[in-house]
């Protein structure tokens, strides 16, 4: 039995939520759906933890779907990077679902609850699948599963703007997915295979060794690289839309703002990170860093877009009075930090980028969960209505302050770990300007976080805040679990920065999935 479990472990975290999702719809009862989906999420989380430990023990695990060998069949390739991310997604998925009860009853009509649970599981399936699979077309399929379910989840929002926001995201998301598909098609046409590792090997044929002229090594180049260039461009831009890289971020603020709080918690903590992961895979696994960063100036492009994005989005965040929107802009800025690390393409930079995916997932998840608590009790996401809530909702407010410190990157929170790693990586690469700008930009986070803290603690209470009571226990406890995690992973990083370091090492050794 145990052997059987171990054998099928790579596919179980995807299959379980996928199977239970239709069950929720078929049974149609919101109570049953709730219990079933909770069960599915926690089991998935447990299995993905097991998977992490198996990968640490055995190294890369390859699973052939239906026993069909790659490159003909679909391969699930689990390595340090994606097992780490899968555990994060499943963990956040499970904890947010546990948290969801009271908030969901408040924001979504009861008749639609069973749909919510089903969509939530599908979204999780899609995200987990994108991580696990080693097949490029499969990435597209799972991306669409997660995206379509996210559109539907967003449209469950309370206000009439929610469907519009979902529609906006649908348009942008579909363009992104189509670009991805075109890129995949071009690569398939070029190599005749869809397995990512195999595409990487096939592309190797076109590589021409660097020419040495007058003792100076010229940049490497690729024969017949026009198709490759176009494919790479489509894949990059397509994924950048899904990552919400500035200036392709326009879909994100509205979706995060108008979606039900619970949906925002889960999506903000996981969705963009998975796209960043897919991007890492495309750059490091299929094309090589050599191709992306030496032949093409992707590194310069990435860090300039990232830095501009960080500044623009952070400044935009400062001016938002809607707190969900404020955090949404902050998310756009934070994606910039991840890409900044990845664009350095060295051990420390990649580690920083990867660990920030994890750390930011925790921090942003925690903060949106706090927002969910406030929305439930105050019925508003406007800063004016939050005035003085620190007196009536002390625990929720404290959670905001601690989570906010993480976002700023104060030592002993996990945000500091990312920031420090990114800083030392930039210094090592002698990117002094990038290092300085990155530090200055992180001060903008102080402003947009602390404005809210001041409103909570130092303003005379608003009418709504006067009447408010502390959030329900289950929401508080789960929020504090995530908040505590941001502190734990800020002090003890063997399982965050340590694993991210392994993943980066793996990628730099030419690790294809």
């Amino acid at each position, binding site marked *: 039995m145990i052997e059987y479990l171990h054998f099928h472990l790579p596919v179980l975290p995807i299959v379980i939520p996928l199977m239970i999702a239709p069950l929720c719809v078929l049974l149609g009862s919101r109570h049953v759906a709730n219990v079933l989906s909770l069960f599915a999420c926690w089991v998935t989380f447990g299995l993905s933890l097991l998977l992490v430990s198996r990968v640490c023990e055995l190294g890369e695990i390859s699973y052939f779907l239906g026993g069909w060998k790659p490159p003909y069949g679909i391969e699930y390739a689990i390595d340090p990077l994606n097992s780490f991310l899968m555990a994060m997604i499943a963990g956040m998925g499970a904890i947010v679902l546990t948290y969801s009860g009271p908030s969901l009853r408040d924001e979504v009509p009861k008749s639609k609850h069973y749909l919510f649970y089903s969509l939530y599981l599908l979204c999780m399936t899609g995200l987990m699948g994108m991580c696990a699979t080693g097949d490029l077309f499969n990435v597209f399929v799972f991306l669409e599963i997660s995206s379509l379910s996210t559109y539907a989840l967003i449209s469950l929002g309370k206000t009439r703007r929610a469907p519009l926001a979902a529609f906006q995201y649908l348009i942008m998301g579909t363009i992104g997915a189509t670009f991805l598909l075109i890129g995949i098609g071009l690569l398939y046409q070029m190599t005749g295979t869809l397995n990512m590792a195999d595409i990487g090997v096939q592309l190797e044929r076109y590589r021409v060794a660097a020419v040495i002229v007058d003792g100076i090594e010229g940049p490497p180049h690729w024969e017949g690289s026009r198709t490759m260039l176009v494919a790479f461009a489509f894949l990059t831009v397509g994924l950048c839309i899904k990552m919400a890289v500035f200036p392709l971020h326009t879909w994100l603020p509205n979706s995060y703002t108008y979606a039900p709080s619970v949906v925002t918690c889960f999506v903000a903590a996981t969705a963009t990170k998975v796209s960043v992961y897919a991007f890492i895979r495309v750059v490091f696994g299929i094309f090589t860093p050599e191709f992306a960063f030496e032949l093409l100036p992707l590194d310069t492009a990435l860090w300039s877009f990232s830095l501009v994005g960080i500044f623009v989005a952070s400044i935009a965040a400062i001016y938002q009075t809607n707190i969900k929107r404020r955090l949404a802009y902050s998310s756009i800025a934070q994606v910039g930090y991840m890409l900044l690390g990845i664009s350095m393409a060295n051990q420390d930079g990649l*580690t920083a980028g990867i660990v920030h995916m994890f750390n930011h997932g925790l921090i942003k998840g925690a903060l949106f969960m706090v927002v969910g608590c406030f929305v439930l009790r105050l019925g508003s996401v406007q800063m004016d209505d939050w005035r003085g809530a620190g007196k009536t909702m002390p625990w929720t407010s404290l959670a905001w302050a601690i989570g906010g*410190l993480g976002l*700023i*990157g*104060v*030592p*002993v929170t996990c945000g*500091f*770990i990312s920031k*420090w*790693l990114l*800083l*030392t990586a*930039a*210094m*090592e690469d*002698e990117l*002094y300007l990038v*290092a*300085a700008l990155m*530090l*200055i930009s*992180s*001060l903008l986070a*102080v402003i947009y976080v*602390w404005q809210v803290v*001041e409103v909570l*603690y*130092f303003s005379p209470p608003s009418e709504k805040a006067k009447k408010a009571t502390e959030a329900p226990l289950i929401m508080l406890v789960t929020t504090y679990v995530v908040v505590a995690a941001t502190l734990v992973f*800020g*002090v*003890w*990083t*063997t399982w965050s*920065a*340590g694993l991210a*370091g392994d993943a980066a090492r793996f990628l730099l050794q030419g690790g294809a999935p």
Partner: protein
Amino acid sequence: MSNVTPETLIQICMGLPLVALVLVVITGKIANLREACTITISSVLFFVTCQLAGHVFSGARPEWSLGDVMMPGFEIAFQVEPLGMLFALVASGLWVLTTIYAIGYMRGHHEINQTRFFACFAIAIFAALAAAFSANLFTLFVMYEVMTVSTYPLVTHHGDEKARNGGRVYLGILLSTSVAFFMLAIAWTWSVAGTLDFTPGGVLAEAFSEGKINAVQLAILFCLFAFGIGKAALMPFHRWLPAAMVAPTPVSALLHAVAVVKVGVFSVLKVAIYIFGIDLIADTHAGDWICYVAAASILLASLVAMTKDNLKARLAYSTISQLAYITLGAAIATEASMLGGGMHIAMHAVGKITLFFCAGAIYVGAHKTNISDMRGLGRTMPFTFGAFLIATISIIGLPPGGGAWSKYFLALGAVDSGKAWLMGTLMVSSLLNIAYLVPIPILAFMAPTKNETDDESHVDGGWKIKEGPLLCVVPLCITAIGSVVLFFFANQIYQWLIPIVQSGH
């Protein structure tokens, strides 16, 4: 205690404030029990610190490392050397007195949220000790930031708009300088020197001789450190200190005269001695720019202090001026100036905490905050103003106040380094100190009160003593005596600190 190794003592020292934190939170509802816990633990902590000091001053350099659990490649490690030991001794010793004082003050003044107050206090002391013991810049930075954040709730204790604005300036300046300059300087040091460990003789000398960093860059790096360590309150990044005066007086006393600001100047000294190395600064003149800035800071802050009528604000500017002395000592970079800077940490701490204690006692006892309202008050509060006078003597640097020695060594250092004009700065500054501090106790004792006829305490030509709460007055008398005792113990401190400048050669 003799069978406890110094390594264990380090752990106990840093563990005790955390134990205090837990106990304070648990016993928060029962005020007497909560305060008993804090006093007991702070006393035990002082005792343990003394034990540890015995080891360190007799030459031991105990170490304790947690390894790189927090950051791959960067260790959280502690190693106690004399400068840190002296700072830890001062901080833990004054914590005991401040705790006693705080009980008197907080109760006398019916403050709210006392549990949060004592809890945050314990974290701040923990951070101060851990910073004092840190073995590398990374550990120091982490503790430095923990201290910034943990003192924020103390500064904004009153929770009103004034507190909010004060807290905003406080957190804003301390966080921005530390992130924009200090963190950058640390990363730069790391990329150049390849290590962040505090090493006798400095770690940058080798990088300099290998050409990885030139003299101008060294000077820029020194500036990044001096300004980045915003807690040293070097102008123009000093605004946070007056802003922090919205806090209850015990906070201003221990944190903004001792723990927080001293962590700042201590870090500057530590960087100068163990990262740059005295010889490197002297050879490359890396500290010259900061010499000018610090000298200007000394004089300007004194001048501003003269214009302040609010006693705490005047003391805050006086602190800025006195902190610049220590930064100056680091920038001059001679043996005497480093020792003078190190001694000034202790001398100024004891003197300034007395002055703040007095300010608090006056506030609780007579509800006066402005100096102009304190005329004649010395007659009703003779102990408070007597202590104030003694501490003033120490701050100015007149015998028999402890401050005389540290200023003497700083002046000696200035002459040694060939910057004799700094002597002039120090002299003028002492005169300014006299001008803004001495009138306060003099007027309190000599001047007639404003409306003598209405004064209730003026009974039959005599003066009825009406001091603050006993728990406030006793600690301030002790620290006042302490600042005189330090004058006679200066040689001892000098002997303790000698190894920090010798190990570089």
